[in-house]
């Protein structure tokens, strides 16, 4: 797995490349937690190059979104973890496990960044 990170004004875009299994999940979790610790709670995960995910990877996503949502300026301006570019196989895992309805999922980075 490789992680690349782009800091925009309001949003941090985190691209994940390769596999996201029990072996890689802790590293992604650390990277996301590091952003939270800097007070950055608007995170867009770009999965365009994510090849494979298993349940430990899913767990990181859900925990990250739970934490992000707890941070809020007002009820209308809260942290969030959103997803852009979900490949079909990853989408299939999301559908099987009931994750699709838990996340805002976008097809376009500009649109996704603008959604925050």
């Amino acid at each position: 797995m490789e992680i690349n990170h782009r800091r925009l004004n309001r949003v941090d875009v985190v691209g994940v490349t390769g596999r996201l299994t029990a072996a890689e999940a802790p590293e992604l979790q650390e990277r996301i937690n590091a952003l939270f610790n800097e007070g950055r709670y608007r995170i867009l995960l770009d999965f365009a190059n994510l090849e494979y995910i298993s349940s430990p990877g899913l767990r990181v996503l859900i925990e990250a979104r739970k934490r992000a949502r707890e941070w809020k300026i007002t009820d209308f301006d809260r942290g969030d973890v959103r997803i852009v570019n979900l490949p079909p196989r990853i989408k299939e895992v999301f559908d099987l496990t009931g994750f699709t309805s838990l996340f805002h999922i976008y097809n376009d980075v500009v649109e996704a960044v603008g959604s925050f």
Partner: protein
Amino acid sequence: MSFRTLTLDASLEALAEISDFVVDQARAAGLDEHAVWEVQLAADEAATNVIQHSYRQCSGPITIATQVIANEFEITITDQGEPFNPDTVPEPDLVSPLEERKTGGLGLFLMRKLMDRVEFRFQGGENVLVMAKRIRQADFRVVSLTGRIDAAAAPEVNRMVRQAMRDGGKQIVVELRDVTFLSSSGLRALLLLARELRRDGGDLVLCALQPQVAEVFHLTGFDQIFQLHHTREEATAGFGNAA
């Protein structure tokens, strides 16, 4: 294909090698690419359970054996860790809202969902997990549409796809190379057919969309519902090439 085994120290670093081994063997057994991925994920979840639960903090060997038997691709995963009782694993939570969502039991749930048979036993001091996937002949039909697909053309689309389904195709590739316009009625016809096929374990995918037709899928969000492929070859690769 003959019997193959791989034995490694059960650690998270072993997961990628286990994955590669299972993929190679599943392909050699003749599973289509989608089934290969399902087997890969099931094996990954099983191995993760062994590493994180059976062996907890300690280590030991994990053995993965594969064979083709009675038209099934069978994987046997053996470890010498704590006895594993699948009945103690919680039912997965697939519906709670975010704040209350529990993530336990997803691995076992996926294994059972993705494989045709999953059996656990504790035997001679070892956990033995046997999982099997039926080997289906990869089979697909290509339906090429032309012109304007609107309300008037929707019944014809329906008729053509149903003809392909009657010919035995559960996997349908709809080629849109010569389609210049697609209306909401056309989309709806495709959606209903895709739903029907998916209920039956098949799928309907689309390929070779002209830009203005692709735009319709993008604007309506239907690109989340359908797999869109650039070429017919790309679309059929996912179904395997046995046909």
